[in-house]
Every structure is written in C-alpha cells, then in structure tokens.
C-alpha cells in the first residue's frame, strides 16, 4: 500500500521554455497538419503570438524533467504497474512557443479501491507564465495495479 503520508507532497518546480521544434514534433506524432500549429506565419495570421501549444502538450513538462519518476520512486511504485486513469486541464490564457513556464505539482490525494488491489494517486499541477500568472491547471489520476497476492 502507498503510504498516505505523501498526500501534500510538493514535487520539484520545473521551469522550461516552450520550443517550436518540440511543438512540430508533437504535431507530427499526433497527426496534426493544420498550418497554424506548424508554421509561425500561419500562427500569427490566426491571431497567435507564435505556434500555439496544443491542449494536452504541457503534460510533457513534468515528464521531461523526471518529476513522474521522482514521484513514483518516492512513493515506491514500479512504473510497469501504473496506468493513466483520468486527466483534466483548465485553461486560463493561451500559451505559445517561446513562453517560459513553470510547473508546480503536488500530490493532492492517495486512495485505494478493491481492498488495495487498485490504488490511485492524484497529482495537481499549476502551470504559470513568467509573470507568475496561472495559465493552465492540470490534474492527473494515476492508477496503480497491485499484484493480487498483495491485495488485502
């Protein structure tokens, strides 16, 4: 069982710049071909400062920085047991290439179901711009599948 003392655990803040090349790679990987997501001029013509960040892209910041690995190591959860249970984003302001963002994440809940066979880790992230304004809020629910023999 994951120790619930970790509820409230603050993860290291990640600061990063949104890169155009990475946005184009993300577009390729997700089949996105619209010019405003690939070409800066087209993005500006569509009213964006630069290439817009697609709705789910910012998940990558925590992953790149190894925050998920840190979280799993701290909680003692092997990566092969996790599944993504739920994900949500709330958008407060557009984010574009060149923006420097910081991500502040914490563990906001840990709970179990089915007598401990399945456990849940809830991670909440605030993504802030260089002025410290929250531009996106994200919540991830990670499901941990425990081996049946360990289930209570």
């Amino acid at each position, binding site marked *: 069982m994951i120790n619930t003392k970790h509820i409230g655990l603050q993860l290291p803040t990640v600061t990063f710049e949104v890169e155009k090349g*990475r946005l184009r*790679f*993300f577009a*390729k*990987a*997700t*089949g*996105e071909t*619209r010019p*405003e997501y690939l070409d800066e001029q087209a993005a500006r013509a*569509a*009213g964006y400062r630069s290439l*817009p960040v*697609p*709705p*789910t*892209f910012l*998940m*990558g*910041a925590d*992953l*790149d920085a190894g925050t998920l690995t840190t979280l799993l190591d701290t909680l003692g959860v092997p*990566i*092969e*047991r*996790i*599944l*993504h*249970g*739920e*994900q*949500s*984003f*709330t*958008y407060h302001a*557009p984010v574009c290439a060149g923006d420097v963002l910081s991500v502040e994440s914490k563990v906001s809940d840990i709970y179990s179901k089915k007598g401990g066979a399945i456990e849940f880790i809830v991670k909440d992230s605030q993504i802030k711009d260089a002025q410290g304004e929250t531009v996106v809020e994200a*919540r991830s629910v990670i499901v941990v599948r425990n081996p049946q023999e360990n289930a209570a």
Partner: protein
Amino acid sequence: MNSPRRDEIRVGEELPPLELPPITRTTLALFAGASGDHNPIHIDSDFARAAGMPDVFAHGMLPMAYLGRFLTQWVPQTQLRHFSVRFAAITPVGARLTCTGKIVEITQGGCEALARLKINVVDDQGEIKLAGEALVAQA
C-alpha cells in the same frame, strides 16, 4: 483560422467526428518522444509482456491529443476553457479510433456563456476508450 467561430451553439448538436488512422508501433514511438512519456510499456513489447500485458499499448495521452485536435477543429483553441477525460479502456496497436462529441448543455461560467460537450474516443467495435467532457466559450 480553419475552425469557424461559433456564435450560435445549440444543445444536441453533434460535432463532426474525427477518424484516425490505425495505431501503429511507429505512432507509439513518435508519441513517446514527442510527449516525453518514455514508459517502456508503450514502446517495448518485451517490457510490456513482462509486466503482464499482451503487447505494447497506446499512451492514454495519445487519444486525448486526438480529442484536442477534434475540439480545436470545431472551435479555435482560444475558446477552450476546460477539457477532461477518464481513460476507460486500453488502446492496443491496430486500434482504429474515432473522436465523437455532442453539446449537452449551455451554461454560464464567470461572465461568458459556455457549451458543455460530452466527448468520446471509440474504436471500430464501438468500445469507449476515453470518455470526457469539455467546456467551450461561445465565441
């Protein structure tokens, strides 16, 4: 901008579906790199089998990214206020996915009118892989 602004959004209106090509191992390799999710369970069949799975399977965030495309082809992304999903079932290699959605409510959020959408990703057997909702500002 490709997506039209929506000045009149009606409850019950269905969004134009987005049909995706079958998920391949290449799709998963590219998405692992682009998304930053390098969990080997999605890209290394040996690792996936050792973890008790029949094979590699898609990152949940891949079909969620497809839903992002689906929503932003309907309205400009600047109108998207909230987007959430539950990952209901694993998406295996070979899956043929379609994004669907429908307006279920017009509601008020702060000082703007919002359309609440029920959105799904389904496979070609009709199995729901992702179920979620979105809040979209009315232009």
